[in-house]
């Protein structure tokens, strides 16, 4: 197990290295010159040159990359080109908000998705199954901003129960996490259903039934534990998606997390902030993947990574 963990962590290093190269290169391939943008529209050429020098943008790309890498390894993601604030500080302020939103969404997704999936599987081909699958399809298909705006319209404008934007209290969390969690709930419901169906067809379930156990016990004590193993994988990956994919939800609900930070930074061409945000998201993904794999190994005694 420990060897496996070490191997997984080592494998993450080249992945992160690759991510850093891609992030660094991609952002410099977009047309436009950050020095010009910073200097403003009416700046003279020499002013622009001076800014370029002061930012190190006059250096060849590989040299710029090495500086960038060195700083990142020292935990220095640079400063925002626009307000001079350290990127690390900005991320430290915003990331926890996105994490909060992502976990709340995951909670919503799990609370809806797993019971719905179990219900569909245990009532296979009945109206319950059809209903769950139709709703799951709708949940995946509905655009996030459409759902978000309609939730605001009903629960905030018409009924006045919940705030439409902001992030201060748990009440602010409800609408955005339902919005963000819906698609994940749909994915989890489908995953739970198919996994459950597979397990219910296994020999040990038949054995359990044969020895006269009540159906409830068969489903929840014997089948569910095994059926949830692949679901855990999906949950972990969903969390990654939620953390990074919160951009639209954060925009609709004016939730100042890293999703919106990323959008703002891209629009302002704030290189260091864009780089830092993407690196953070990528790192989160890699870490989550490792965690999921480890959990998988713990849950399923058949899986032994040696």
């Amino acid at each position, binding site marked *: 197990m420990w060897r496996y963990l070490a191997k997984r962590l080592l494998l993450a290093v080249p992945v992160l290295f690759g991510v850093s190269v891609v992030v660094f290169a991609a952002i410099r391939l*977009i*047309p*436009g*010159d950050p020095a*010009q*943008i*910073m*200097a*403003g*529209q*009416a*700046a*003279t*050429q020499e*002013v*622009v040159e*001076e*800014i370029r020098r002061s930012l190190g943008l006059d250096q060849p790309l590989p040299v710029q990359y090495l500086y960038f890498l060195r700083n990142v390894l020292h935990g220095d993601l640079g400063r925002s080109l*626009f*307000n*001079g*604030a350290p990127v690390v500080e*900005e991320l430290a*302020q*915003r990331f926890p908000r996105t994490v909060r939103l992502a976990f709340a969404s995951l909670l919503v997704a799990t609370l809806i998705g797993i019971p719905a999936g179990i219900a569909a599987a245990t009532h296979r081909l009945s109206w319950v199954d059809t209903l769950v699958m139709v709703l799951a399809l709708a949940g995946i298909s509905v655009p996030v*901003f459409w759902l*978000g*705006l309609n939730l*605001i*319209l009903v629960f*905030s*404008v018409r009924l*006045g129960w919940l*705030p*439409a*934007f*902001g*992030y201060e209290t748990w009440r602010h969390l409800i609408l955005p996490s339902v919005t963000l969690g819906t698609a994940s709930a749909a994915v989890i419901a489908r995953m739970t259903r198919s996994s459950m169906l597979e397990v219910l067809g296994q020999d040990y379930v038949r054995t359990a039934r044969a020895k006269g156990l009540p159906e409830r016990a068969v489903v929840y004590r014997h089948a569910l534990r095994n059926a949830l193993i692949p679901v855990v994988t999906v949950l972990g990956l969903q969390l990654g998606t939620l953390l990074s994919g919160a951009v639209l939800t954060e*925009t*609709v*609900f*004016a939730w*100042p997390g890293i999703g*919106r*930070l990323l*959008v*703002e930074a*891209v*629009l*302002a*061409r704030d290189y260091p902030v864009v780089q830092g945000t993407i690196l953070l998201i990528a790192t989160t993904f890699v870490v989550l993947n490792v965690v999921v794999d480890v959990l998988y190994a713990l849950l399923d005694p058949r899986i032994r990574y040696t």
Partner: protein
Amino acid sequence: MNRILLGVGILGLLVALSLPGQSAPRGPEPGGTLIIGRGVDSVTLSPYATAAPDAEVIAHLVETLYELTPEGRIVPKLAESMPRVSADGRTMTIRLRRGIRFHDGTPFDAYAVKWNFDFILNPENRVPFRGILLGEVTSVEVVDRYTVRLVLRRPFVPLLAHLTHDFLAIHSPAAVERAGGMRPPNGEPYGRQPVGTGPFRFREWVRGDRIVLERNPDYWGPRKPLLDQVVFRAIPDDGARVLALEGGQVHVAVRVPPRETTRLALNRALRIDRTNSVRTIFIAFNNQKFTDVRVRQAFNYAVNKRAIVQTVLGGAARVSDAPISPGIVGYAPIQPGGWPYDVNRARQLLAEAGHGGGLTVTILHPTGRYVQDAAVAAAIQAQLRAAGINARLQTMEWAAYLAYTNQPVDRTPVEMFMLGWGTVTGDADYGLYSLFHSSQWAPAGFNRAFYRNPQVDQLLDQARTETNPARRADLYRQAMILIWRDAPWIFLHSESQTTGVRREVQDLVVHPTERILAHTAWLRR
């Protein structure tokens, strides 16, 4: 006896208590928090922020020597009176109001003004627009504690208008020092916590979420601020911003999309304010690629500006009849009703220019920066087809867009592009000199159309030094007639600002320079 007196007294008191608020009209009430919902958060609150949303917040905190009223007049603000300009036009003497203090308690005086202007004049500080705003000023002198004198290289008539520009507002030098100075290009770290003389003081900024200002209890002005707080909240999604207004979570929503206005007009808790803006939207040609004036004119004939304003913009705009908008000093309608729509004339001109078989062009346009910008571009594309012009549309995100259209003439691949310009000083110089003078070609200046007409150059130069207002207006009129015929742009429209406001909000000013001002606003309860 006592009992009767007491009874009468109580009765009187009850009457007195019940009267106000029922019969007597109520005046402005102090207190409360005004929440303004807008599309973006500020980038910086430093003095030299170029984006309009930044200027909007700053305008509550700091003040300029002179002020441009919403009606387009220039009036003294921190200055006590209109400036005295010497006979040769080479000095401008300004008397300042006495007894004003910055929010940090330090006094506002001639030394503070000199400090601010010296900072801008120092080329090392790289203040954008320095050349345009203070270009002819060589030095700033303190005559006495409450008098400053600007010394000019040569007469520079737009200077007074430029003194209303937010970049030339007066900040507390002590506060700048305390914050650790202003570093180029955006004046951070001071820009996180600006200190001026304005009706509101900076209180808190939660990035990406809100900026909170609080009342300045020691405000010097004749109209004291009434609100306890003004909060600017960033709600990027248009739909969500409008819903927040309907739900009462914000009092004001800026940039209400045209498709929402009819529905909102039915809501009795709100009103929709339409305010003119000094911003003009146009599609510029690269005039060094489109050298034939007949082709440029043909495009102007081929676009039905009125139809665009009525359908795409829901009437929230005004067809351009000059290169700048009404309300600006020097504006004159050059062609009433705008450039006429005439497809046949367009075809004929194109044929004369040797494009009888049609023409293919690429038009760049932003998306989300101006009201319905992408939809306007699409409408133009459709209309051009009728004239035999095949237009390809291309869009980019805003920062890349600005950079892409700002390349030198020998390198730029740009053929045509949409842009808007706000003449925020209210004076034609800022709108015409910057965009049409040949000394202002990109990337050094804002003449991205690479337009050059020596006659226009001469008229614009002359107008900068012409002190007689009537003659100066005439110079601008002549210049605009030439520009109009040369058609370096497709002249489109001036935007209106569509603002949703809840009924309880009183005396809020939506300024033509695209700023929401809460200086005198109050909330009816």
